[in-house]
């Protein structure tokens, strides 16, 4: 992995675009295909690509393992927390209509938050599994 200049330059250019595409898939999921799961996997694939080309340690400095491990429960917490918030605001569990004045707007906010939770959990899990597997042989 020392002399592969082309890979290094190409990946350096590609990484921001892959991250951008993940965010596009996430936030454009209301209109086109996509959503939290796909976006999370794409974001994790970005980290994995970076780790393959620049080495595991560089990637761990970019995305620390502790952060990744915290993302796994955080996403589920956000999702379940949205449900609890709905209950506190007078609705049923995960009934987003009460989150805003207009039921449709509430649904939109709820879906956005929930998808963010899925994104965080999926990206964290995939990256954490890769870190654990790739760090074993050393």
């Amino acid at each position, binding site marked *: 992995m020392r002399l592969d200049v082309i890979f290094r330059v190409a990946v350096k250019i590609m990484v921001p675009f892959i991250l951008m595409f993940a965010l596009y*898939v996430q936030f454009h*999921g*209301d*209109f*086109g*295909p*996509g*959503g939290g*799961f*796909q976006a999370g*996997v*794409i974001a*994790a*694939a970005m980290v*994995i690509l970076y780790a*393959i080309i620049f080495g595991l340690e560089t990637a761990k400095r970019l995305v620390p393992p502790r952060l990744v*491990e915290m993302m*796994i*429960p955080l*996403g*589920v917490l956000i*999702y*379940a927390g949205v*449900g609890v918030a709905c209950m506190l605001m007078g609705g049923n569990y*995960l009934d*987003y209509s009460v989150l805003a004045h207009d*039921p*449709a*707007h509430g*649904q*939109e906010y*709820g*879906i956005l938050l*929930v*998808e963010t*939770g*899925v994104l965080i*959990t*999926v990206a*964290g*899990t*995939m990256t*954490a*599994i*890769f870190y*654990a*597997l*790739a760090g*074993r*042989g050393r």
Partner: protein
Amino acid sequence: MVLLTLMAIITIGVVRVRSLFAVVILGGIYSFLMASVMIVLDAVDVAMTEASVGAGISTVLMLGALYLTKTEEAAPTHTPFVPLFVAAGTAAALIYATVDLPSFGLADNPIHTHVAPRYLDYSVEETGVPNVVTSVLASYRGFDTLGEATVIFTAGIGVLLLLKGRRRIKPGPKRRRIRR
């Protein structure tokens, strides 16, 4: 049909080839073909997932696992007749079940007459989200998706426990972190 034929050829290749590296790569190709089939069936979301998880991440994880083990498949220690019988029996049962299925894509199939029309008619005014797939997944079936997120969480924690737990035996600076 072409895609399905290619998938069958790749399956035979996976069974025949002894080199595990080639098997992993063939598995990635299989996933990409599956994603193409999903695009043909107009299920772009599933195609996206299949391409990124099946062909992307699981191939990388398999290669990572391969790095830690041998790259040649061990010679089988048993005769293939019992697995062959089980596989043929399952295939026969599945093919028998497909005979009763309604023909593909008809508008009055049971799946299109139950809740799907309601979702298609009301989801935009009820949720304000034009993509029905998203509104069904995250709102109407929110509990299911919460369950899915929990499944991913549980699987991730389980794999991390399995993969990182062994480190405790090795002495080193990592030890303190694991204990916490």
